[in-house]
């Protein structure tokens, strides 16, 4: 039994980086290579999960069923996973069909203070006999005590693990040690961690999480993901191997996976640009970057100002529409001065 279970959302979080335009061919090719590398969980779908394809956060070029089928065909030992946000996805329209298509793992996610919206969806997954995990997004926005309380609710609902997400890439290693450690000590279920690289801390934060007792870590090929990207899976795998922490994956397989991803699905390997540093510092959801860039240009305002304004308003994931209003206000303020 490996000490760390790696979960790979390249085909889901990565979708943010290409405005949800991953094709079924790309999904198929990557899934095949991930299976060969022994990646335990391969997560697939629109960046905001099943049922999220919308004008609000972007329309995906393939529908959920197509994406899931393309991956399902190629995965047998690797589990097929999805991300699911109640409020975007409903049981009837999105979750039930996904489970019917053969999804193995459902990560039901809420904003880090709103775990009680996941009760029914987690319950549904468990009733169908599949694996349900709870996910707390934008977890830097709540205190440790609140995170523990919310994670405990998910545990009460039947979640079989709780994943803390650093959706804005705002954490430093000490933050992770404290938060993951507190959950590990107080929950009866495994704890996982999902990092973003806005401040260059993704791998270090993931290792801190492992040392604090996390047993599930997320990583993507070449760090493919929104903004500055995610934890780079190949690097994480190598570091864990060097630390003699078992993951069950094949190192060369993971390296090949990264190479394939770079060749076939990643138009530009993520790097930490100014705008990502700002969003990390402002504590704003990484996936807002493309929307902020586009709308800032339209209103002729500095995107960095928009990010700090969104951070000031404590905007949560899913509130992309507020970007329009914030940019409009900044533009009006500019005219007034």
């Amino acid at each position, binding site marked *: 039994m490996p000490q760390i279970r790696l979960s790979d959302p390249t085909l889901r979080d990565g979708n943010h980086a290409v405005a949800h335009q991953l094709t079924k061919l790309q999904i198929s090719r990557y899934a095949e290579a991930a299976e060969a590398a022994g990646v335990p969980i391969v997560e697939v779908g629109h960046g905001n999960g099943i049922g999220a394809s*919308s*004008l*609000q956060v972007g329309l995906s070029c393939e529908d959920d069923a197509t994406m899931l089928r393309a991956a399902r065909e190629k995965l047998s030992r690797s589990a097929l996973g999805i991300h699911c946000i*109640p*409020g*975007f996805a*409903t*049981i*009837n*329209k999105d979750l039930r069909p996904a489970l019917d298509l053969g999804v193995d793992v459902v990560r039901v996610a809420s*904003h880090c*203070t*709103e775990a*009680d*919206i996941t*009760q*029914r969806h987690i319950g549904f997954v468990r009733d169908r006999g599949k694996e349900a995990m709870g996910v707390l997004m934008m977890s830097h*926005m709540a205190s440790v005590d609140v995170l523990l309380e919310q994670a405990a609710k998910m545990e009460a609902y039947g979640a079989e693990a709780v994943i803390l997400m650093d959706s804005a890439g705002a954490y430093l290693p000490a933050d992770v040690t404290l938060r993951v450690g507190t959950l590990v000590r107080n929950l009866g279920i495994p704890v996982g961690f999902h990092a973003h690289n806005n401040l260059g801390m993704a791998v270090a934060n993931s290792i801190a999480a492992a040392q604090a007792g996390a047993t599930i870590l997320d990583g993507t090929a070449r760090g493919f993901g929104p903004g500055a990207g995610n934890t780079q899976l190949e690097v994480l795998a190598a570091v864990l191997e060097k630390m003699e922490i078992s993951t069950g994956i094949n190192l060369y397989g993971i390296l090949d996976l990264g190479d394939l991803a770079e060749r076939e699905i990643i138009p530009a390997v993520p790097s930490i640009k100014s705008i990502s540093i700002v969003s990390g510092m402002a504590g704003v959801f990484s996936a807002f970057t493309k929307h902020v860039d*586009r*709308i800032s240009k*339209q209103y002729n305002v500095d995107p960095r100002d928009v990010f700090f304004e969104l951070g000031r*308003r*404590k*905007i*949560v994931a*899913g*509130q992309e*529409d*507020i970007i*329009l*209003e914030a940019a*409009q206000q900044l533009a009006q303020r500019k005219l007034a001065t």
Partner: protein
Amino acid sequence: MSYTADKMKIAILGSGNIGTDLLVKVLRSPHLECAMFIGRNLASPGMAKANSLGVPISDRSIDAIIQNPDCCELVFDATSAIDHKRHWPILKALGKRVIDLTPSNLGMKCVPAVNLEQCVDCDNVNMISCGGQTSIPLAHAIAQTQQEVEYIEVVSSIASRSAGPATRINLDEYIETTESGLTMFSGCVRTKVILNLNPAQPCVDMQTTISAKVGNPDLTKLNSAVEAIIARVQQYVPGYHMIVAPRVETNRIVMMVKVQGLGDYLPRYAGNLDIINCAALAAAEAFARHHLSTSSFWKGSADASDSTK
């Protein structure tokens, strides 16, 4: 100025926050009189409030009306979908008009700004949902003025504190009810509803974005239709304001409204809860006026004749 003879007697079923807020609104109405405020628990704060306002209270739930059928002509049901399904056959047999604030989907769906006149003769009128009351007027304006409406999407952000356990457990039902309401009032089959809960304190007012994919956007026509319908909504929801006027952004029409509540019994930031109460009140007042006189509901509309009995 005694209007008692000209007021329709109503009862409110459901003594929680929604029912109590509705009571405060009814007490202000020139056309409605609350003959009974009904719940299950005399110790609830809503009951104490009603009592302090001199309104007769009862903890016998639907039995209060069965045992005293002449007490009212119209009933607001602010209980739950399951309870309403039980209440409706009883109230129908008693010949009562019902305004249903639950997502039971039984009655005629009503959005006052759009179809108030068609509802005045219905015996069960359903208020759909808060998101529905907020977005359907605008979706209707889009459908009326744009060609080839392919898709309508509504995203609402509400204060986390305004969403209690009932809302949270029934998120899916809220989404599905609102989507079908949008389809019914716009004729557009493909609709999508998204709900975000924002925990920021101080609490944020309800904010709703309506976007649509249409064949050839005609902003001029849309702007005047939107202005007109917002004016109609504001007659019964004073806190309803446009904050981003209709515009075309990357192949879609988009507009944003904000709803601040009246703060009658619910907090002012709970515009989402207030709008459904305001709409329910407007529907009831239309019933009452229709029953009591023939004057039109809309101020300044062409057929406003003031012929009272």
